[in-house]
């Protein structure tokens, strides 16, 4: 059996009612995985949104996912950033940590190492803003756990190809 691979895809769609439901319904209806999905309008003038999807599957399933997405009527383009040359991926997370004394100091010190910004602080808590690759955020969250981690809000992955060329 072929092994499962993780792929990041960028899908340009017409920003019409129900387009996200269409994409998500395709994944659930056909039993594909969604590890992360983000969507936002990227071209207001032409009403185009960009959906970034991280999914996993065998090479045959990955090809199916692309073909199935491509035949949705409002889809303009689909690019598999994992196979089409090098790309960069980023995620943003807001991480709330509660604590006092040494733990509070330690949280600030680690945030500094990870270049996370404190965007809210009270005498008992911080909210850190951190961006980077998924594993960097995972590592930061792990380190915050013993220091009083309260909650996390993550955007999911956004990605773009390196170099001058657009998709």
């Amino acid at each position, binding site marked *: 059996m072929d092994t499962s691979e993780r792929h990041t895809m960028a899908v340009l769609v017409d920003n019409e*009612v129900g387009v996200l439901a269409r994409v998500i319904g395709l994944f659930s209806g056909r039993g594909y995985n969604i590890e992360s999905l983000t969507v936002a309008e990227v071209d207001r003038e032409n009403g185009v949104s960009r959906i970034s999807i991280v999914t996993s599957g065998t090479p045959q399933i990955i090809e199916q996912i692309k073909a199935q997405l491509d*035949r949705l009527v409002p889809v303009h383009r689909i690019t598999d950033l994992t196979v089409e040359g090098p790309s960069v991926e980023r995620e943003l997370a807001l991480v709330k940590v509660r604590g006092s004394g040494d733990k509070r100091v330690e949280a600030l010190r680690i945030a500094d190492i990870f270049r996370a910004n404190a965007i809210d602080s009270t005498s008992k808590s911080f909210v850190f803003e951190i961006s980077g690759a998924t594993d960097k955020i995972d590592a930061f969250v792990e380190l915050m756990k013993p220091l009083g981690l309260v909650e996390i809000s993550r955007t999911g992955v956004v990605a773009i190809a390196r170099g001058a060329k657009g998709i």
Partner: protein
Amino acid sequence: MAKRKLSGSDIIIQCLLDAGVDTVFGYPGGAVLPIYDAIFKQNRLKHVLVRQEGGAVHMAEGYARSTGKLGVVLVTSGPGATNAVTGLTDALMDSIPVLCMTGQVPTHLIGNDAFQEADTTGITRPCTKHNYLVKDVNDLARVMNEAMYVAKAGRPGPVVVDLPKDVLIEEAAYEPIKITQAKHKTYRPRIKGDKALIREAVELIAKAKKPLFYCGGGVINSGTRAHKLLTEFVRMTGDPITLTLMGLGAYPANDRQFLGMVGMHGTYESNLAMHDCDVMVNIGARFDDRVTGLLSEFSPGSKKIHVDIDPSSINKNVVVDVPIVGDCASVLADMIAVWKEIKAKRDPKAQKAWWTQIEKWRKRDCLRYVPSKKLIKPQYALERLYELTKGTDTYITTEVGQHQMWAAQFYRFDEPNRWMTSGGLGTMGYGFPAAIGVQVAHPKATVIDVAGEASFLMNIQEMSTAVQYRLPVKVFILNNQYMGMVRQWQELLYGGRYSESYTASLPDFVKLAESYGAAGLRATKPDDVDGVIKEMLSNDRFTICDIAVDQEENCFPMIPSGAPHNEMILGPEDEKERETSVEGMVLV
């Protein structure tokens, strides 16, 4: 000159007329009253009143499949739309172009659980090719035209346009528009196949020792040109061809090169040729599980070429060697050109050996059955139906089950668009309304729904429609008083425990027909069959034939679920010692 201002309802009628639509199958209700009023005030668009919305979609499917045109449906909001869902799913699975307009509560009430409100676009999203909710009358003409384009372009399918009542009443300027491949901003399916791949495919075919064409509904959807080109190409090569259930008629069934249908109830020679071929040329079929049998042992030694207009059909179930995305007619024309250009010739020795092998399989005479003087064998009834209608202007629809498979095996189609059956979804109750739709499109033709009694009961309400429009549809019921295919599986796999598969309390179909002012005929012994068929054919009224067939007859040959092609059961004598694997039991 200022553009004309029309109400939403009038815009809809105008868009349909401008697109050449002549018939709508529908059922009125509160949300669509404005459209029905607009229909009342004109006489160019014909409306066929159905008795349940599910029937409307199947009628539109029958209309579309027998003409190659778009089928059009109009239903009201809420229950009107939800009743249409089965038909929409059926059209999606079988790639039939259908436009279904659904009423909707006025825009300001959407989301308030208003009377007869349903989230129609939400419900139909997974069972349509695409759907639209029109919230502004100024978008209406564009959406209508886009919907008709999407339904027909590429791999066809059903499209829903959800129409809030206020949009039907408000006015907007109207001028005719036509959306085409070039004009649509995102949906532009690929028609022309890749040249290099086509060349590679033809070279592969030319070198084959044991080639087999395996073709399906895509050839029929592509149009009569594809049927002609396929026939031309297959005859040029002299190779064998098999067709799927959806593809029957894509190649003349009476031609020597045709091996019969492939798949679970296909012929022995087709399935064995699929298993043993060295080059498989799939044109417009989709490696459905009913065709492939056990995937891991599917045609193990062959190189596979796959031509399909839908890229997602390629490498979905079976990984192929030469994938060609494109329209069947276009690709076939290119294939023929390359075949001529490279002056391809078959090695006569290899070809003879392959045909000798095929003839050996053919000699098994896999469709044989034990004739009876007392009981009407369903196969006999269909053989007689074919003999007495062949060469005439006849269309056949079916319901779903044993009778459907027997019809596919015994009725021989030499032309496309003559055979309408629910292949993908397997919808019982499809055939009768589909036959009505076919008859509306072809008033002079003979249209026969080969039915089982259980399936016919599922959309029996449409008798009233057939009678109202004086449609001389024939319903040919192979009545075994069982859900025959369910009973067959229970016999083969569940120790003969016939759980709920007996059709009790059947009506007297002859009296039922008469109560509608239609004709009812009955055959109870083999000698009756010819007389009943002849009387049915000479009748210019809606006619039900109740053919009392052998209740115990099973449909063979059969590839049991979970088995590969070369483990086919040919008849009752084969089935005794078999044990079905757990894996096979899971499959349907």
